[in-house]
């Protein structure tokens, strides 16, 4: 099973809608305390170890600001 | 047809204030809301509309209010359908109206011609926003001035009123319904975003304080009635549907009996459509002067810009500058004589408007003294002018 290396959220445009949290089947996200440049509270991938890199959060993010980096992939690339 | 005076806020500062207040209500409301209040008071019972910023509140509030008075508010599929339905309702015997803004106003142009041609009383509000095209939906502008007069095809005339306060949105709406019934024409209220979206105190008189004009209907037997034969006042009696007159009403050029084909009568009829209004301008034309009516420096303004100009006049006075501000309330038919009178003796005329120079052209036409340059103080792009800027303009362009 895949694992996530890192989950990036672009703070310039995140609107804190929390659809990433809603869609994630592995309960990776929680609302965080950091504000995006647009003044919204951003989610935090606090349980990144749960992530199975299904990509749902990325494809459902309405602002296209979330990127999931898979571990395997990176290895392959190296 | 006595009309309440149009000056904004009068009721609050004037003598009989307390007296008046007893006979009505004072409420803080949106300009667009004041328009609805007045329409309902005037007897409007049909509204056909389509949402568009910044006029949408008129539709929204109508949809809330009309059912309570057994009226009908219909959100139609587009603005064309909205105004055509209003014309249908008008011939159905009902006072009817619609409201829109620039893009929707474009779409209504053909039906404005229809309302003119079939002499259907109705009221059309255009709360102006920035153009051209989709422009700036939430910004104010006054770029539809000529469109309101000339946007439809062919020769015609109609009345266009320009309110500058929420109170005037109320007053002009009452006036618009009255004029539409008096002349059997579409009357246009050419408001703008500032006026439509301002909230301020509006005095709503009791109905018995106001005069309401109702369309004149025929009473003679059907056989004796000639549908488009004018009465003395230039307007034919209106045999609205279901009154037994079995009226033939067509949008084509027509003769007195409503049929097509008689060129001579058709020509006379077109002439009458115009003259029934323009020969009676004394009944409704209105120009106000604020400030020193002998001042050599004069602003000419309409709509929301009147307000900023008034403040500029006041500020000028403080600085020892005598200024008059000529406020054109009924912009069409353009009140040539009243404007000429209001500008008599002015040496310097500055037309202030939120477009690239429209009333300016009318003033150039009306004030035919080559030595007086008609200056333009123009603001576009949704920028409402500040009083200081008027004074700066006077200084800088000197």
């Amino acid at each position, binding site marked *: 099973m895949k694992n996530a290396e890192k989950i990036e959220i672009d703070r310039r445009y995140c609107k804190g809608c929390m659809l990433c949290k809603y869609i994630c089947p592995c309960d990776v996200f929680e609302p965080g305390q950091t504000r995006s440049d647009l003044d919204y509270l951003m989610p935090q991938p606090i349980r990144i170890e749960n992530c199975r890199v299904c990509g749902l959060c990325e494809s459902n993010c309405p602002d296209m600001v979330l990127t999931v980096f898979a571990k395997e992939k990176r290895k392959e690339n190296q | 047809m006595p009309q309440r005076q149009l000056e904004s806020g009068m009721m609050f500062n004037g003598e009989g204030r307390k007296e008046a207040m007893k006979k009505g209500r004072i409420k803080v409301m949106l300009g667009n809301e004041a328009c609805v209040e007045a329409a309902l008071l005037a007897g409007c019972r*049909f509204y056909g509309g389509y949402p568009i910023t910044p006029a949408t509140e008129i539709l929204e509030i109508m949809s809330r209010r009309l*059912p309570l008075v057994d009226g*009908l508010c219909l959100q139609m599929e587009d603005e064309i359908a909205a105004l055509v339905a209003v014309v*249908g309702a008008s011939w159905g015997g009902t006072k*009817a109206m619609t409201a829109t803004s620039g893009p929707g106003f474009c779409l209504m142009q053909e039906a404005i011609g229809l309302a003119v041609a079939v002499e259907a009383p109705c009221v059309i509000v255009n709360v102006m926003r920035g153009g051209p095209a989709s422009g700036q939906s939430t910004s104010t502008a006054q770029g539809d001035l000529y469109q309101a007069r000339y946007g439809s095809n062919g020769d015609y005339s109609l009345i266009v009123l320009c309110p500058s306060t929420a109170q005037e949105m109320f007053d002009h709406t009452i006036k618009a319904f009255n004029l539409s019934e008096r002349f059997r024409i579409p009357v246009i209220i050419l408001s703008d975003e500032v006026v439509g979206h301002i909230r301020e105190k509006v005095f709503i008189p009791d109905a018995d304080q106001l005069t309401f004009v109702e369309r004149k209907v025929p009473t003679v037997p059907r056989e004796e009635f000639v549908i488009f034969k004018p009465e003395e006042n230039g307007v034919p009696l209106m045999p609205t549907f279901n009154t037994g007159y079995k009226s033939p009403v067509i949008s084509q050029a027509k003769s007195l009996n409503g*049929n097509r084909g008689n060129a001579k009568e058709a020509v006379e009829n077109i002439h009458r459509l115009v003259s029934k209004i323009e020969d009676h301008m004394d009944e409704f034309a209105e120009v106000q002067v604020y400030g020193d009516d002998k001042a050599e420096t004069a602003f000419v303004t309409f709509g929301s810009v009147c307000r900023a100009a008034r403040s500029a006049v006041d500020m000028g006075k403080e600085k020892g500058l005598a200024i008059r501000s000529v406020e054109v309330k009924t912009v069409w038919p353009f009140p040539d004589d009243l404007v000429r009178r209001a500008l008599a003796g002015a040496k310097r005329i500055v037309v202030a408007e939120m477009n690239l120079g429209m009333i300016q052209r009318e003033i150039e036409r009306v004030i035919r003294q080559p030595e007086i340059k008609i200056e333009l103080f123009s603001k576009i792009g949704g920028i409402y002018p500040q009083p200081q800027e008027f004074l700066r303009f006077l200084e800088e362009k000197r």
Partner: protein
Amino acid sequence: MNPLGEKYLRKEFLPFLFCPGCGDGMIVQAFLQAVDDLGCIDDLALTAGIGCSAWIGVYMNVDILKVLHGRAIPAAIGLKATQPSRKVVTFTGDGDCLAIGGNHLLHAARRNIDMTVVMVNNQIYAMTGGQVAPSTVVGSKTQTTPYGNIEKQLDGCKIALAAGATMVSRWSTAHLKPLIKTFKNALNHKGFSYIEIMSQCPVQTGRYLLGSGSPQFNLQWLKDHCVKEEDPSRWLEVESQGKIPVGDFLRIEQPEFMEEVQRMNQRVKEEQGKGGDR
């Protein structure tokens, strides 16, 4: 003038502006026959758009509002809204109703407002001299499709059905009897009814599309090409033979718009009385 004409026509507007042998005049008569049978002449209010067919109602001695090209339906809605007791009927052409006015048909149908749209389908823009209409058959040479029309037809009945009309029929001027019956049903139908009438235009359709300007030929053409088929599932077959299905396709009861409005107004005023929701 025959007796029906004597009784119901607006004499001072005669003669009809229609060309010799035009189906529009036949529709005037058929409609008046239905009205006479029902005795409802005083309940009528008509609207019409622009086109030859739009003049049909003008010759009837009733209230009629003839508006702009394509806009007869919204005018009817405004009338109906303020005169709910009236039988409101709109006369419109295939160009008027399906081209420029198509959208209004959709929305009147979905509202199920109590009115009747009589759509006269002569397969062409007749008034302006024979241009292609949305109802013109593929391949036809018209003034604006000199090399043959390549656009599929729009079928007004199918559109009315899809949009939610509660009564839909199509007949032709070669079917005056059932047409009159359908008129009567429509006049009594509570809701939106759409009646399409295939009608001869000898001068444009006849001359340029069908190859003969003779009224007789054109009426015969309709007789030959319109076949009764009231089952929509079999239309494709009929159409593939170059025929036009006619018949009464739908007639159901559904909440009517003006009645719903009145119910709403009633309810709202009651709630208001009780200080209901804001």
